[in-house]
């Protein structure tokens, strides 16, 4: 390899170089094309609905997370070029670390924004637009034959589901109830329903007795309760409505009398503590971008959808009135932001 024929090799390689550069030049000319990006602006949002593109960042409540991902999938079927990133941080974490510092376009929330959070947001020039997207309601169900119970107090529920000295028989909780063993069904620990139920009933999220049949499959709860006279279970309201013939929903007494779970009582807030409104907060400045505004419109438009909200996620959809109210609020905010 050490060259003693240096001159000859130089010559050879120079000739090769000429040949090669000629070939490359020809290939280069042949392979040229008009610059597609020349002059036109790429990747920015334009008003034309078919060509919407851009990125939407969403953070916040883990309860709203499945609803948000549902909306994302449905939205992207219409607008495949819009990217939507969804992060589950918890309501507070989302406001604190993402939304108010101006890093996200939406913040999902399973409770209304607090004054402190509003203040933090306004300090950073972020103006939240509150949009109610669904209602979360849990239903306690028993067997159709369980004639001894129609209404249950929150205290009794707490006693039954608490991990401390869980009662084994119905009569342990209320002397009027039969002296029979409980047969309990409920969602497993990975479920948001479980978190919410334990939080409002037992008093601490994730705290529950463990000797019940835990399942991710709501139909197992319905089947189990419908086949066993002394069974009790809890699940999302939407799933109960599909099976209202096979099981009986209990009224819940939180101190103001017995309230039956229904779309109306859940929305009016009477059905406490097992119902709560779910929100997403849009940043007004983000609504100036057409793809963000369009996503917000899409979400509100579909917030009444039985399929997306009730069947796929298990929450109570908005009423038409609520939708109209949210839409007005949204359009006003969009107008203000874009105008």
């Amino acid at each position, binding site marked *: *390899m050490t060259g003693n024929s240096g001159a000859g090799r130089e010559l050879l390689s120079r000739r090769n170089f000429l040949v090669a550069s000629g070939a490359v030049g020809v290939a280069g000319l042949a392979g040229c*094309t008009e610059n597609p990006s020349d002059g036109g602006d790429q990747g920015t949002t334009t008003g034309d609905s078919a060509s919407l593109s851009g990125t939407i*960042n969403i953070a916040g409540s883990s309860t709203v*997370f499945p609803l948000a991902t549902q909306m994302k999938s449905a939205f*992207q079927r219409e607008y495949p070029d819009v990217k*939507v990133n*969804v*992060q*589950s941080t918890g309501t507070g974490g989302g406001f604190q670390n993402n939304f108010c510092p101006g890093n996200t376009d939406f913040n999902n929330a399973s409770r209304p924004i607090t004054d402190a959070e509003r203040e933090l947001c306004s300090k950073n020039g972020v103006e939240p637009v509150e949009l109610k997207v669904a209602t979360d309601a849990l239903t306690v169900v028993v067997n159709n034959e369980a004639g001894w119970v129609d209404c249950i107090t929150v205290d009794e529920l707490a006693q039954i589901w608490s991990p401390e000295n869980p009662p084994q028989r119905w009569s342990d909780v209320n002397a009027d109830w039969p002296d029979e063993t409980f047969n309990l069904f409920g969602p497993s620990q990975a479920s948001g329903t479980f978190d919410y139920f334990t939080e409002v009933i037992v008093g601490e999220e994730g705290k529950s007795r463990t000797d019940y049949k835990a399942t991710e499959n709501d139909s197992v709860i319905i089947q189990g309760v419908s086949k066993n006279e002394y069974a009790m279970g809890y699940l999302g309201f939407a799933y109960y409505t599909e099976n209202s013939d096979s099981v009986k929903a209990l009224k819940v007494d939180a101190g103001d009398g017995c309230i039956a779970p229904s779309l109306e009582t859940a929305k009016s807030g009477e059905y406490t503590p097992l119902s709560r409104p779910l929100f997403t907060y849009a940043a007004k400045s983000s609504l100036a971008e057409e793809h963000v505004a369009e996503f917000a419109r899409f979400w509100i438009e579909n917030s009444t959808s039985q399929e997306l909200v009730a069947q796929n996620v298990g929450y109570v959809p908005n009423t038409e009135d609520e939708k109209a109210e949210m839409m007005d609020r949204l359009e006003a905010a969009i107008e203000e932001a874009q105008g």
Partner: protein
Amino acid sequence: MSTDARDAVEDGFGHVSRTVGTVFRYLLLVSTLVGIVTLGVLLVYVANDAIRPLTADPGWHLTFVLAFALPSLLVGGYLYRRDKSALFTGLNALGVPAVSLLFASAAAMLFVDVVPPLIWFAYVVAVAIPLVVLLATTRYSHRIPFLARVATLAAVTVASLGVVPGAIQSLPFVPQAWLVVAATLGVPVAGVAGTYADRRWGRRAAVSVAVAALVATVAAPFAGPTIGLDPLPATVLMALAGVPTAVYVGTVVVNQPERRVGLLLPLVVVAGALVGGAVVDALGFAGPQAWIDWQFLTSDHSNTPAEAGIYPAIVGTILLMVVVALASFPVGVGAAVYLEEYAPDNTFTRVVDVNISNLAGVPSVVYGLLGLGVFVRYGGMTPGTVVVGGMTLALLILPIIIISAREAIRSVPDSMRQASYGMGATRWQTVKNVVLPRSFPGILTGTILALGRAIGETAPLLMIGAPQIFDLPTALDARVGAMPLQLYVWATTFASPEFYTTALAAGVVTLLVAMLAMNSIAIVLRNKYQREQ
């Protein structure tokens, strides 16, 4: 040991029992196997869920046993009995295309979906101009003072990066995508192949190898469509997988005639797979309904397991790894060279020394917090982006890179440094010409293993606010997750029996394949390195 001798003196031979020794021996065996076996069981379980071999038609299995497995085993066995080194060559000839194809696919993904070839071209040219200036000024270094060279280079770099990308992107006529890729990848690959050939077979062979490599790369976009590949990916695959494989096979054929027979193995394996596929198609035997399939590898996340895919996570992982490698390699190797070659032995360096070892053991969640604090809170960067994630992971593996690079540098014999000094070389020349070339394979091995750790990290990404559900990232400031994060989300947020046995299992297999591919490169490099020493 000395105590044995004393016991023997005090108690004679004492009570001798074989049982203790035997029990001890098997206990050791158990402790050796416990980890491997439990992990193995899990992997078999996961792989079974991901691939579901039992869902295939028995005829499908029979066809592939007859056409693929049996011939491969027979040839493998024959090679094993005849010449083990030939078998080794055969296995390598299978591994080189497999691994290079994986990496080439990763590069192709980036070109197709993330970096528009024109922008890539613009930046390659912008970086190439200062490099050419660097080479030119180094050539005439004796005539130009050092500071003038540095100043020129800096000025050219700034000017080039500032002007060239914009200028190229606004040209009215630009090269087509495949041509850009053929030029920017094909030319360097041809250069590397030529250098390799030059070292082995001389200048004339080198020129033909380089030309052949370039021609193959340029021809690929025309040949690709005939087998159903788009021009752009075909070019990338040819440059990064086809050429290396051809060079490896060529080396075996030319230089190792006694091992040529080993190439039978890949021939039989590939032919068996093709024949098996054709027969199965013709006879209509259904293959396994694997969850890990083309649809899974190329789709976005979905709430329904059957439609869920891992593509954005794969691209996210690739982008993160690019940033991690670019950020951690120069810094880590620089620190290692300083500590090994320059640093005086004093209290300060000893403290640094101990701290680096400790930093390697700091839990990854702490590094996540560091990334959140430094880049997001203090630096004001958007949480969860490719840059933030990549730099956080780079910090995480920096100590590992430093330690392994130091190890590699230390293994360069001191006599070589002394010889270099003895010939009048300065310390800088010694490091540049003796230490770094000699230790480079070791440094590379350590870096790849460290990247293999980074690829599996979840906690830091969670800390810096990576989104759980994300779409294909197309820029360095896009919010992104990675494969392990996607698995974590499937296992927690979407926890359901369906996800556990479908998308999650398929995702685990994908992640492990990526990691094993990286590690296999590290292992091959290490073996080669050890043989050379």
